[in-house]
């Protein structure tokens, strides 16, 4: 089990803000462990990975909102709480589907053959479908897609990851019916 040295997080964040990649890696790796524990107490296990990723991405994109004169933990908790509340709001609108994350390797080929990729893509939000199509069908790199659409590479990766999960869920729905 990884021992977290939370006392160091403030100074790690300070050096991350000035562009120190080595310390940023240590910080994110430790935060990831802490976030997993934080969300595991609050949401279903299946949602933990998504929330951890979303929170890490928010920390990355909004690191400039950290007030260097204040403690690091309250800021981290506030970001995590915001993501958690966001998730609760979404769940009020959508029924969450149980996802099998290693589904790709296990899909019944017969079923997947019946399910046209384009049809699956059509069920996704436009931007998500567009990105998956560019990366998986047109074989563009994440960097190229990020540049074309004006997104960060990490945002592209998260969008692809979520899109594929949604597509897997659609296929498993068909599998269940059959």
């Amino acid at each position, binding site marked *: 089990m990884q021992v977290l040295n939370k006392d160091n997080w403030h100074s790690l964040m300070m050096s991350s*803000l000035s562009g120190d990649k080595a310390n*940023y890696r240590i910080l994110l790796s430790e935060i990831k462990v802490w976030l997993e524990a934080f969300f595991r107490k609050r949401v279903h296990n299946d949602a933990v990975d998504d929330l951890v990723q979303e929170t*890490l991405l*928010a920390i990355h994109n909004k690191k*400039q*909102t950290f007030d260097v004169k*204040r403690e690091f933990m309250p800021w981290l908790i506030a970001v995590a709480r915001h993501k958690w509340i966001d998730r609760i709001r979404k769940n009020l609108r959508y029924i969450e589907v149980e996802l099998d994350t290693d589904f790709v390797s296990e899909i019944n080929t017969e079923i997947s053959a019946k399910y046209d990729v384009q049809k699956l893509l059509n069920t996704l939000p436009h931007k998500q479908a567009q990105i998956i199509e560019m990366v998986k069908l047109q074989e563009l790199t994440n960097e190229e897609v990020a540049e074309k659409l004006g997104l960060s590479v990490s945002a592209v*990766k998260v969008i692809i990851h979520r899109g594929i999960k949604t597509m897997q869920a659609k296929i498993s729905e068909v599998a269940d019916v059959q």
Partner: protein
Amino acid sequence: MSNKFEDSFIDDLVADLKPARPLNIWVLSGLALIATAVLSILIVAFFGMRSDIIEAFKNGVVVWKNGGLLLVAIGAFIYVMNNSRPIKVKSNYVILFMLLFGGIIFYQILKLVINGNFEHELTNINFGAYQTCMSIILVGGGMVYFAIWKIWLRNGASTNPQFQSTMAGILSGAIAAFSYAFHCNMDSIFYYIICYVSPVVMLGIIGYILGNRLKW
């Protein structure tokens, strides 16, 4: 799952790291002050200062007309400033600024009622150059809002981005209206409500609509 995926995710975030300058409240303050100064100078340079400015100072018109808008701008500024980070700073007292502004308007209307001029003022509003007034507040305020969006809002992480953007819209409109009021000599309270307050509210609505894009 996916330790491998998440480790590569962290790799991507680390690779994407660039030095970041923490949000500094002086940036927003400077932006608001510069916007006010630039708009005021431009308006006075192009349209001129109202000819009775000294008189307007003496009889208190500038105090309630410009001062009211300044109160709104200060209140909105405090809200935007306090709500730019994930940790919320209580800003309920901002409502006092808005209530004071409401009080100013109420007092001006009450004065008309007491003097028996209410109906006459209401039915005989001299709209003068209302197109110029409203369009300058909307366009000037829009430009200020755009600057606030670029420099401040999109870098922030408010827990209520939509309301923060609404307040940024009101702040922008109030700055533009405050600046324009140095030129305009239409001092009827009803003209003020229609040609000054409503464009500020419109900018607030635009801010509310655009605030939806600030989700993080």
